[in-house]
């Protein structure tokens, strides 16, 4: 569905160096980025601010032309066949609206139907589907400028889906939304991906989005790909430690000297202990046995490292 090979994208920055003199400087926003996305995949494209995420997205959607490199999206070259591509993909920019500010949501959808030449029955069916799943009914006839951010985002996503794109590209779709709205969007997108098979590519700062939606992660920083793979593999690779949390029946000041434990801390006056251990050196089972030999255990849980931890470590590793 997406094919990117050695994508490079330069920007020219002009800075004033004197009253009349200007210096031009080429800045590489994206440098030799390569990745593929197969049909039906859901991929998270993450990285810190200024990493080159938005630039990549703009090149993939045909807004910007690449400086060099090979890009195919949905079988076409985005910079040459912008209009052709526009019919095949849906794009949601969290920060920019596709909708008509002073028209009711329904009228915006109607205009998009004309723009994308969607047959009326198909349009009606898809709109009904989205309206049901995203609960648009109560505000379909409200002018867009009066919608809350959460309502507007649901409208934006519907707008991007009415021409039944095979690929949906989302740039920060959950930015600024409250928890409930985020959850509702994620649920909808997960369903779209698994049931309808729509390919998803999304950039986000909210790693819960990734955890919930994207089995695969492409991490980019300073214009290059740092890592590409399933979230699980990345975790094992950069965060080989796990945390065992034990709740005891009776408080114990500290659990020191357990084999394989790299650090330990206690809370609730010694009732709960967090034991960080290396996967390679011991197993959770062995550690539990060692703890149980010292104190009566009430409850146990084994935690995976948080995803932001994983990404932070990837950045640090460079």
């Amino acid at each position, binding site marked *: 569905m997406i094919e990117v090979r050695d994508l490079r994208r330069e*920007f020219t920055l002009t800075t004033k160096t004197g009253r009349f003199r200007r210096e031009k400087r080429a800045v590489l926003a994206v440098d030799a980025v390569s990745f593929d996305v197969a049909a039906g995949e859901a991929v998270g494209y993450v990285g810190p601010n200024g990493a080159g995420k938005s630039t990549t997205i*703009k090149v993939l959607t045909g807004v910007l032309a690449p400086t060099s490199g090979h890009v195919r999206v949905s079988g076409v070259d985005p910079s040459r066949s912008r*209009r052709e591509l526009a019919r095949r993909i849906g794009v949601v*920019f969290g920060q920019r609206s596709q909708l008509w500010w002073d028209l009711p949501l329904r009228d915006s959808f109607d205009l998009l139907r004309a*723009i994308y030449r969607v047959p009326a029955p198909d349009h009606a069916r898809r709109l009904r589907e989205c309206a049901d799943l995203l609960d648009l009914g109560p505000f379909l006839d409200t002018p867009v400028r009066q919608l809350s951010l959460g309502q507007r985002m649901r409208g934006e996503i519907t707008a991007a889906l009415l021409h039944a794109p095979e690929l949906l590209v989302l740039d920060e779709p959950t930015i600024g939304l409250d928890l409930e709205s985020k959850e509702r969007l994620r649920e909808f997108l997960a369903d779209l991906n698994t049931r309808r098979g729509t390919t998803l590519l999304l950039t986000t700062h909210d790693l819960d989005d990734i955890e919930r939606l994207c089995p695969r992660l492409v991490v980019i920083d300073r214009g290059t790909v740092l890592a590409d793979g399933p979230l699980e593999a990345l975790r094992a690779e950069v965060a080989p430690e796990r945390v065992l949390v034990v709740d005891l029946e009776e408080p114990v000041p500290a659990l020191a000297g357990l084999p394989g434990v790299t650090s330990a801390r206690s809370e609730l006056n010694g009732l709960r202990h967090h034991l960080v251990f290396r996967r390679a050196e011991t197993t959770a089972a062995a550690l539990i046995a060692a703890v149980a030999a010292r104190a009566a255990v009430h409850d146990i849980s084994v935690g995976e490292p948080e995803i932001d931890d994983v990404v932070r470590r990837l950045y640090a590793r460079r």
Partner: protein
Amino acid sequence: MAERVYPRLVAARLRGQASYRASFALLCVVSALSQLVELAVILIVFTRVSALGGFSVDEVILMYALAGVAFGIADMVAGQLDELPTYIRTGTFDVLLLRPLSTLAQVMTSDLHLRKVGRTVASAAALVYALAHNDIAWSPLTAPLVVVAPLSGAVIFSAVWVISCAVCFWLVDGQELANSVTYGSGAFTSYPATVYGPWLRRFFAFVVPGAFVAYYPALALLGRPDPLGGHALLGWASPLVAAVTAVVAGLVWRFAVRHYRGTGS
């Protein structure tokens, strides 16, 4: 299924504006008045002189009216291009690039200020007056020219608008420059070309083909030879000039958008 997208886009904009009815009527009147102020200027000048560049007051009003109708139509069609710098700055232009439509047509239809009708209507009234008070060389050729000339003029103005606004893809603050060309050529065409100095005349006659909006067609309507020695056929050349400027404008726009996508904002 040939659905007409652009009329729908414009209709939607008009619906969006419909909520401001009272101000609409007022703005319509203001727009008409602003056009009539220019007419007043011409009339005041003629209280001091009996001819301007060799033309009588009624003849100048004819040129003023032809230019006014053309400019009024162009303002409605292409005036929205004045918003281009805002679209570029706020990223709205990127959204236009995501749709399977031409960017130029999308910018042009992104809004329509119906109040601008006021200017066109006032100019059309002046045109009717000028046609009645001049000694028009009516013939099967000149009669259609009355309609064709303002329409060609509208295309010429629109093309000039497109070309000068395309500057904004390079200079986001290029609006002032663009306006001096668009509104400047609007003012130029209201007077006979003979009143200007040779350099300004050449610039606005041939670089920005403003003389083909009103001056040459008016000469043809009046059956007068060009005091500057231009060929008599120039009076009939407006549609051709319009077609050429439109093509040039299309190419410039394409080049400009390619530049934008190549450099980004």
